[in-house]
């Protein structure tokens, strides 16, 4: 199949061709999904160099595991799950602390009445938000990215991170509160 003929090919076709060693087909697959994978890596890891290394690792894994991909699962879902697992494995290898911070740290995220102006923010700047996300502790960041950006449910997050649903919920809330704090202090 020529590169041009690959233009309209579905993921399933591209996967099938890639599995036979068709580098052009795999290139097309990469081209279609690289931004999604890289952006997820970038947000979870908070560092472009590490995100690029991770993107490479993910696609190498994809290439090796193409044979085990079951066509009935959507490729994007499978790829997404593989990416998340790869990132979490990276955190585990590097002993990144994923559990909730201590009670004292938690309390700092809560607002006592009368301690701040009761005005809501007027606008959330995209760049400022990205920078604020990068400042979150890894545990908060992972839950926030998975839930609020990638649309995972707490049950899935709890399963992936090996924590309870309650922990996932409270980490998410604290992540949002921390983001708010960062954004307000900058705004």
């Amino acid at each position, binding site marked *: 199949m020529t*590169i041009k003929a690959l233009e309209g090919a579905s993921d399933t076709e591209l996967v099938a061709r890639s599995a036979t*060693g068709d*580098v*052009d087909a*795999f*290139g097309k697959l*990469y*081209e279609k999904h*690289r*931004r*999604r994978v*890289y*952006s997820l890596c*970038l*947000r979870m890891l908070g560092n472009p*160099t590490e*995100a*690029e*290394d991770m*993107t*490479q690792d993910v*696609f*190498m894994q994809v*290439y090796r595991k193409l044979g085990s991909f079951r066509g009935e699962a959507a490729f994007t879902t499978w790829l997404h799950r593989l990416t998340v697992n790869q990132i979490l494995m990276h955190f585990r290898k590097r002993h990144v602390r994923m559990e909730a911070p201590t009670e004292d740290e938690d309390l700092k995220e*809560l*607002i*006592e*009445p*009368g301690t*701040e*102006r*009761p*005005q*809501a*923010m007027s*606008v*959330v700047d*995209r760049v400022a*938000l*990205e920078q604020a*996300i990068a400042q979150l502790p890894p545990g908060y960041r992972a839950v*926030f990215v998975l839930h*609020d*950006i990638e*649309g995972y449910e*707490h049950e899935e997050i709890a399963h992936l991170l090996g924590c309870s649903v309650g922990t996932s*919920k*409270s980490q*998410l*809330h604290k992540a*949002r*509160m921390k*983001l*708010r704090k960062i*954004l*307000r202090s900058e705004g």
Partner: protein
Amino acid sequence: MGCLAYQEKISDYIDGLLPIPERQQVEAHLSTCRVCHAIYQDLVMICEASRNLPDYEPSEVVWQRILAEIAPSGAGAPIARGPRWPVRRFLPPMSRSLRWHPAWAVAALLVIVGVTAVFLRHPIQLIEQPAPSGIHWTDGHRQLTIRRTNRIIVHKSHIQVDLVKQRIDELQKRIEAAQIRWSPEVRALYERHLSAINHCLNNCQNQLTRQSRDPAVRDVYEATLRAKLELLKQFAEM
């Protein structure tokens, strides 16, 4: 229930995860408490903004590295499989007893291309000598050409050697000052790469003093200098 208890429920409230009685309690509180209401509004805004964040583009070097690992080679070995940064995949050790000869040149070229390919963030023009078939690639935006033959690949783009050397000196000074803060692993990694690159540079320089017009040696020399510059840049940022 005080404000702090309500604040803890705001996220679940936004996500629609509260049972009806609790939801009504939170709603009642938000309608009377300005502080908690402002927090609620902020969190809603953060959630909405997060859903609409754009995707980003990885640099082209990522695909080149993947391609280098997966592309089938005529010789059965991948090209440009250099050390990835900062992963600890070291350059092959070079024996001091090795004299300059074709096989060594091939090894040196592979090392350089590997290092260069990894560090360069710009599209790489690789040309081979001599020139049978190679891999042509388009990533949708521009044509990339990665060719290979007998695993000899030269990075061919001439650089201003004096400027590069000057920049290398500057970076080395910066690194000397910063090195104290490095862990032993990082220092070992740095020294190992640097020594492999210096070894190659020395060999090129020796060769160039004898045959100053050999363009192949010149290419290797320039590519190595560039690799050194990129290596120092990476470490100077640490």
